[in-house]
Each structure stands twice: as structure tokens, then as C-alpha cells.
């Protein structure tokens, strides 16, 4: 019915129906409340319009009524809150099996890097039916990753990671917008999400000669000298990084934090912020020595160390550590 005049964008992710359901509920609820109120107003206005000789009747008010119309809306509001919160919780906790895409936003483009190494600009190919987690950061100002068809949006901030995820359910090409005002070409910072059938997607993937992110990261890990301290045994001056990602880490000051993407990123840029228990704060900062992309690759590599290894990555020797994939609720920290 609304083909030429749609009231909502395409529903192309697993999250979309849930969001629309709440939205439609709210439309109906507000529609009902508005109509109710307008009806009363118009009815009273007509019925009690001024007539000669008829005086208004003075009414004090009614505590019972007041209570009714405070408490009932309050419960309605609570219900809306719970519903909205449930959706939000889902949006902000990526499933564990999600494939990861690193996103770097800058004025005014989107740069993507797949775990398999494919890089894209302003266009992102994803397979249908697969959970995809976006690990995003910005090189300059705040941007916002917005795909209306997926009903996802997340601001992308400089200096840290933010995370969002989606599972596309319908092949097609969808708008990608930058939703946070970011300067002159804010409205030009748009792109496409290409959702493909898995087979097609595989074909697309094998089209390029990309180096997987983790592998690129491994090369960096060697060339930047990380390996000199982080060795695959316990002899290094730094902690063995195998099996670190996604696990809780005990810090020197007694706190325990989860080694999520943000933590690994911070460890590289700002090693002094959180010292691992039992180690000296000798790790130099790599701030300014690595680009955002390289940083992403390093993080991908560190995380790959306890995944079932990607096909091409040679398994680091003496690794017995295993598989439960890194995950984690998105979490942020003041950098």
C-alpha cells in the first residue's frame, strides 16, 4: 500500500522489526491519547460554548482524578521504558559469534576493513544472516554510523572505540548516513551497505588480494618491535598476549577490567593507564606512531591470538590456548 509513499524504511536487519513494533505501538498509543484529548477538547468546546444566561459551573478539582491521570500514565511510561530498554540492551550487546569490521571515520568518508583484510571506502559488503560487529573510531571529529534500514546508529568518536552490530536479513543495497554533524560535507558523508547472499559474498571476498587484518597486524607486531617484549612464552618483559583478549585482566592497582577492544587499544596508545599486575610500566606509547588503520590491525591480531586461528595465520608456536571468542558487551572507558 505504501510502496510509493512509505512510512518507514526497509526492514533489513534482525533488529528492525523490534524497533518498528515499539514505534508502531507508540504511534498507536499517542494517536489514541491525542485523539482522546482532542475529542474531549472539541466536545467540551462545542457543548459548553458560551450561551447567554448560562453560567460556568465552578469545579474545584478532584484528587481521585488527579491520581488516576498521574498513575496510569506512569505505568504506561514504565512499560514503554522497559520495552525500549530491552531493545537497547540488544543493540548494545553484540553476539559473540559476530564477524568484525573495523571502521575508521574521517571528514568526510567511511573506511572499512574486514577481518579478512578487504578494505572499502563508503561502501560495505556484508553477507545476509551473519552477525556483523562494527568496531569504530574516528580520526577527527564525532561522526555517527547510521543505517536506517537496519535501525542502528552509533556515534563514532575520536580517541576510542564504539561498537554497534547488526544482522542483515534481506539482500539489497541500503543507505549509510553520517548522522552526527561533522562539518562542511556532513551530508556528503554517505555510502552504501551491500547485503549479499553468503555465496555471492564469498565470491566477492575472494575477488581481491587482501591481507587479513590480523595478518597485517602480525606483520606490524613484528616490525614495530612488539614481539621483543610480548613473546609467546613467559620470558618476555611484557605479558604473553595469548588468551588475553576478552578475558578479565588483573591490574596492578587491584582493579579488574575486561580486555576488550577498547582496552587493547588503550594498552597500545596509553600503556601507563592500566598496568597489568606483576609488570612494570615500561611499555612505550605508540601514540602517533601508528595510524588508526594500523591500530585496528594490531588489535585484530592481538584478538586473533586466542581465536580459532584464521586459515592463513600461522598458528603461533606453543599456543595451546583456545577459542572462546572475544566478545564482550560494548564498553567504554574514559581514555
Amino acid at each position, binding site marked *: 500500500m505504501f510502496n510509493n509513499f512509505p512510512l518507514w524504511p526497509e526492514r533489513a536487519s534482525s533488529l528492525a522489526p523490534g524497533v518498528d513494533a515499539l514505534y508502531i505501538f507508540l504511534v498507536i498509543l499517542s494517536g489514541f491519547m491525542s485523539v482522546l484529548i482532542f475529542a474531549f477538547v472539541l466536545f467540551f468546546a462545542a457543548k459548553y460554548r458560551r450561551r447567554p444566561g448560562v453560567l460556568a459551573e465552578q469545579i474545584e478539582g478532584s484528587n481521585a482524578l488527579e491520581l488516576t491521570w498521574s498513575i496510569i500514565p506512569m505505568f504506561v511510561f514504565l512499560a514503554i521504558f522497559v520495552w525500549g530498554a530491552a531493545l537497547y540492551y540488544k543493540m548494545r550487546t553484540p553476539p559473540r559469534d559476530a564477524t568484525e569490521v573495523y571502521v575508521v571515520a574521517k571528514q568526510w568518508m567511511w573506511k572499512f576493513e574486514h577481518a579478512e583484510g578487504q578494505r572499502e571506502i563508503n561502501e560495505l559488503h556484508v553477507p545476509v544472516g551473519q552477525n556483523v560487529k562494527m568496531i569504530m573510531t574516528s580520526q577527527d571529529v564525532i561522526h555517527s554510523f547510521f543505517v536506517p534500514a537496519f535501525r542502528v546508529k552509533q556515534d563514532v568518536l575520536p580517541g576510542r572505540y564504539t561498537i554497534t552490530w547488526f544482522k542483515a536479513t534481506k539482500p539489497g543495497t541500503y543507505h549509510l548516513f553520517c548522522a552526527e554533524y561533522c562539518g562542511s560535507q556532513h551530508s556528503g558523508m554517505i555510502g552504501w551497505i551491500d547485503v549479499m547472499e553468503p555465496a555471492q559474498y564469498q565470491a566477492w571476498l575472494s575477488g581481491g588480494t587482501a591481507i587479513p587484518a590480523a595478518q597485517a597486524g602480525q606483520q606490524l607486531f613484528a616490525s614495530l618491535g612488539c614481539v621483543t617484549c610480548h613473546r609467546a612464552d613467559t620470558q618476555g618483559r611484557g605479558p604473553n598476549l595469548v588468551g588475553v583478549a576478552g578475558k578479565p585482566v588483573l591490574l596492578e592497582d587491584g582493579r579488574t577490567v575486561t580486555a576488550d577492544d577498547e582496552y587493547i587499544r588503550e594498552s597500545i596508545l*596509553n600503556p*601507563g*593507564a592500566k*598496568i597489568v599486575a606483576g609488570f*612494570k*610500566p*615500561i611499555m612505550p*606509547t605508540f601514540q602517533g606512531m601508528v595510524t588508526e588503520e594500523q591500530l585496528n590491525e594490531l588489535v585484530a591480531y592481538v584478538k586473533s591470538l586466542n581465536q580459532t586461528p584464521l586459515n592463513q595465520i600461522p598458528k603461533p608456536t606453543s599456543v595451546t590456548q583456545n577459542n572462546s571468542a572475544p566478545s564482550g558487551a560494548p564498553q567504554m572507558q*574514559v581514555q
Partner: protein
Amino acid sequence: MSDSEVAVHNPALRHHFAEVEQQRNASSLGMWLFLVTEVMFFGGMFCAYLVYRTAHFGDFAAASSTLDLKLGTINTAVLILSSLTVVMAVWAAQTGKQKALVMYLLLTIVLGLAFLGVKGVEYAEKFEKHHVPGPTFHFAGAIPGHPDHPADPRHAEMFFSLYFVMTGMHAVHMIIGIGLFAFLAFKASRGAYTPAYFTPIENAGLYWHFVDIIWIYLFPLLYLIDRHK
């Protein structure tokens, strides 16, 4: 004081008030409301400080321990003394001691200037040590208690940014206060204030005490926390 008879003729009573009591209450309520806005004004900075201090506790401690504790303490004492002189000025006004009033006001100004002078010395030291945020900033301290753990200079720079903003805003308030007292001292020497009318002295006093209280918090927050070795 028997004001009720005076009220009608009191030259200080402005036309739109019915009585002196009303006018006095209005002006002190107004002054307190103004101080509320000041609380919130500094509150924004305290909020920033709280957030970053908890996030980068060690780095901030490192930066904090480069501040000159001796000068900070002296300044605290100076400011507290000036609060005493102000309250004495109000007392002098209340009891109609005009000479004492002028004297206390002048004393307050001197103490205020002394505070600013010491602050100036401290600022100058920051410039020498390149502890002023900006392109020339340089910081190489270690986190207190962890001598081999260098503090992150970026966070130290944030500490000094906050240090300058907070003490700077405080100093601006002091300068305004000093100006105010200079004006009041001049008027007082002309006999403008009597036990029946000294609202300006009272309100300026409130302002000064408020500025003092801000410092009472700034001092421990900036200078003292995690100071020990």
C-alpha cells in the same frame, strides 16, 4: 535598632518596597541566589575535575605534586585571614565604626592582592617549567609511589588545563571582589554606610566569603590529594 519609624524616611528605601526590612531581605535573598549561580558555575569545572581525576588518578597526582605546597598553604592562610577582615568590616558597619570599616576594607584589599601576587609567582613558575598547556607543554614526572612509572604527559596537560581554568576563574572573581571593595572603601570613607544601611558591605562580604569557600575546596583538590610519597 528601632527601624520602623526610620523606615518611612529612610533615604535608602527604594520606592517600590514597602519597608526597609522587606528591602533588606530581598537584597540578601538576591545575593544568595546569585551565589547559587556561582556554585553551579564552578560546579561545571568541579564536575570536569571529578571525572578526569577519577579516570587518571595517578597522572593527576603526578602533576599535582609539582605544585608548590608551601605557596598554596600560605595563600590559603592569606585568604582565610581576608575573610576575617571582611567579616570584621561588616561588623564595623553594623556597629557604626566608620574608620574601622574603611580600615578593614583596605586590609582585605591588601590581602586579596597578596593572594594574587603569590598566585602570580606560582603561574610564573609554571611558565618556566613548561607546565602551561599548549604547544610548549612538557611534563616528565613519575606517578607518586611508582618512581619508574612515568606519568602520561597528556593527562598531566589536562591537569594543568584544569588547574589554570579553576584557579584562573577564582582569580578573576578575586579581582572583581577587590574592585568592589575599593569602591566600597571609597564610599565608606564618605560615610555612605550606617548601621541602618550597609547592604552593599554585607553583600560584598558574602561574595568574598564565597570566593574563599571555592578556594577552600580548590586547595585540597589541586594541591593535596595523593600528595604523599
